[in-house]
């Protein structure tokens, strides 16, 4: 949920933008990270860990823990907490073994 009226800070007034999550069109605010854009839409599980096959989502929000990987416009393994959302971005959860340079070269 977006905080329209913050108890201390002034209203951001940032523009709404659209992006896709697993094919579904969703809205975010300009200046948000991908992780925040997803959480604003109540998506908290961003993927499944490779080895233990457990759910993963945002943990540190600072690019340190690597728990928040998603696929962005075909590029896998992008840290969603330190990457800003952009208009039209196609985000997919990381559910399998990542192809780190996926989408550019054929296997």
């Amino acid at each position, binding site marked *: 949920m*977006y905080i329209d009226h913050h108890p201390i800070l002034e209203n951001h007034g940032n523009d709404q933008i659209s992006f896709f999550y697993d094919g579904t069109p969703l809205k975010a605010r300009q200046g948000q990270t991908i992780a925040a854009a997803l959480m604003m839409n109540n998506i908290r599980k961003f993927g499944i860990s490779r080895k233990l096959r457990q*759910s993963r989502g945002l943990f540190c929000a600072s690019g340190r823990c690597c728990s928040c990987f998603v696929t962005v416009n075909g590029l896998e393994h992008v840290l969603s907490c330190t990457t800003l959302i952009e208009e039209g971005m196609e985000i997919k959860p990381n559910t399998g073994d990542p192809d780190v340079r996926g989408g550019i070269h054929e296997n």
Partner: protein
Amino acid sequence: MKTDVLIIGGGPAGLNAAIETASRGIKTIIIEESYALGGQLKQQTQFFNNLPKQFDRQRGIHLMRTLIDRLSPLPITCLLKHKMIGVYKDGRIGIANDTETFPIDAKKVIVTTGAAEETDLFPGWTLPGVMTVGAAQILINRERVLPGKNALIVGLNSFSAEVAKQLKACGINILGVMDKTVSVNDKKLVEGLEDKKIRVMVNTVIERATGAGEVKKVTINNDGKKEDLDIDLICIGKGLAPILEPLEILDCEFGFQAKLGGLVPKYYSTLGTSNPSVYVAGNAAGITCLGGILLTAEIAALNALKALGVLNDNEVKVRSSFLWDELRSMESEESIETFIARVAHIKEFHEECELPLPASFHAILEGC
């Protein structure tokens, strides 16, 4: 790229160090891995009362603006979304962004990488909905997103208490702030929470957190009594540890100082490390308060300027002893142990290197 001073990290320490060097006309580059400068100040809405004299009492986010405004007219290169990834054989620093890797040839490097939050391990701690208190604060203040509706805070300290209040002010129901210790020495901290109708639970641990795909329930053990709570957010506030990787890559030696956050680079009273071209400041030089972060940055920058021949000995001596004095009063006000540990850390390294402490430093030692 060539520079006189390379600053690694664009948080409060990095910014303050850059103001010092760039205002002397010294070529300065800051690299910052985030998309913006400011570090943790970006989401700190709390007031900081205890800041160096040149700053007024202000909120973290406003201090960030103050620092960036002071920096922006100065000739300085800021490389955002850039990380230090290594050192070349010839000593140049390897920098990378999303698309390229390149070397920076720097005469002096000031490492201001800050700190990372520690976690707490309990079954279920990796479930989505479990996050650090810092992450929750980023969500509400920087991202304007509610991280959950019903929250439990693990670990009672001034930062977690502050964030608990901020979360509550945003409308999140705080079920409690818990700590495994049997009592909390800091009465003011507890009263501050109880004033805001936030429950404080001592001698309490999490037995497990559960939920399909994200956290939904938690079982806590409160003084031997088990309790199940419906929650969708667990915030872990177990303190900070310095971020050291760049210092490791730069071949700096480390020592252990529990009160400074554990493993800390060894440094002199100049904030210079065992690598003669590397200085360290801010939380990377030991966890401290915001005042301490700003002051250590100034001390490191001044000494780097002296080593570059920009400032003379005497000038630096006078300013340094003034800054050390201010650092002592600032850190003592928050926690005297931090300052004592810092002095012990420095003394140890000077002794190890058989390098006498400067006379001005003796005066400081006598004062504590």
